[in-house]
């Protein structure tokens, strides 16, 4: 049931989930965090993208409003990259229990990313001053983003478009599939095909969007 919340309550919840996911990427598996993320994504077309990005930017940078690209949001807020790193760090030659324990979080991140894309497609409007995404960006993303923001200072910002973030999103999902030993997590063919198949199908949908 939908409940009416005060502005302060919503903002506190925003801060709470950002802190939780930043503290530990598996925080997504808590009911409260997942509900908040899903609610934001569900109403992504209602909340102005600029407002959402700016809030997250301020929270992440301690009040210094630096521009965030959508892929920054995916990587930092949604936390898929952090969860991927945590999973790989738990790899063991013979004992796969630790590696397998990331199954739920990985499935939920894949799902929230899919949800995010749906919301982004609906909200594919300008978010105001924002850094265009640098295609193929790797771990130096934060520094590169900051440098880009500085170089753009004083210039008129290019409106954000979802299409700018398609390539890095594909790259992120490709990295997930490349780095994960999926057979250790999804032990049956049916399970594995379920996750990999759905992710690949999702990538094909994005690629189709870029070609249309």
């Amino acid at each position, binding site marked *: 049931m*939908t409940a009416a919340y005060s502005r302060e309550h919503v903002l506190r919840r925003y801060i709470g989930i950002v802190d939780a996911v930043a503290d530990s990427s598996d*925080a997504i598996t808590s*009911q409260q965090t997942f509900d908040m993320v899903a609610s934001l994504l569900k109403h992504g077309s209602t909340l102005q993208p600029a407002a959402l990005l700016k809030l997250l930017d301020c929270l992440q940078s301690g009040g210094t409003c630096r521009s965030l690209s959508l892929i920054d949001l995916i990587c930092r807020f949604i936390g898929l990259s952090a969860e991927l790193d945590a999973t790989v760090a738990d790899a063991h030659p013979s004992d796969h229990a630790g590696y397998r324990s990331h199954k739920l979080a990985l499935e939920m991140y894949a799902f929230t990313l899919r949800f995010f894309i749906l919301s982004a497609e609906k909200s594919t409007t300008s978010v105001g001053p924002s850094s265009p995404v640098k295609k193929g960006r790797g771990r130096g993303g934060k520094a590169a983003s900051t440098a880009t923001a500085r170089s753009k200072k004083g210039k008129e910002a290019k409106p954000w478009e979802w299409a700018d973030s398609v390539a890095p999103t594909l790259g992120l999902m490709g990295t997930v599939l490349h780095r994960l030993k999926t057979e250790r997590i999804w032990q049956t063919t049916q399970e594995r095909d379920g996750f990999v198949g759905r992710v690949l199908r999702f990538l094909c949908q994005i690629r189709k969007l870029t070609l249309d």
Partner: protein
Amino acid sequence: MPLVDFNLQEALEQLSEPETFPIQDELDVSQSSASEINAVLNSA
């Protein structure tokens, strides 16, 4: 920390219509509070 009751296949099927995706304790950002939230965030 209560773990979410999540099934990937079921969730993806429900996502075919995002507007009706079921969420517990859903925030009312789609109603009158949305404009206020936007204003606050834009002035942050």
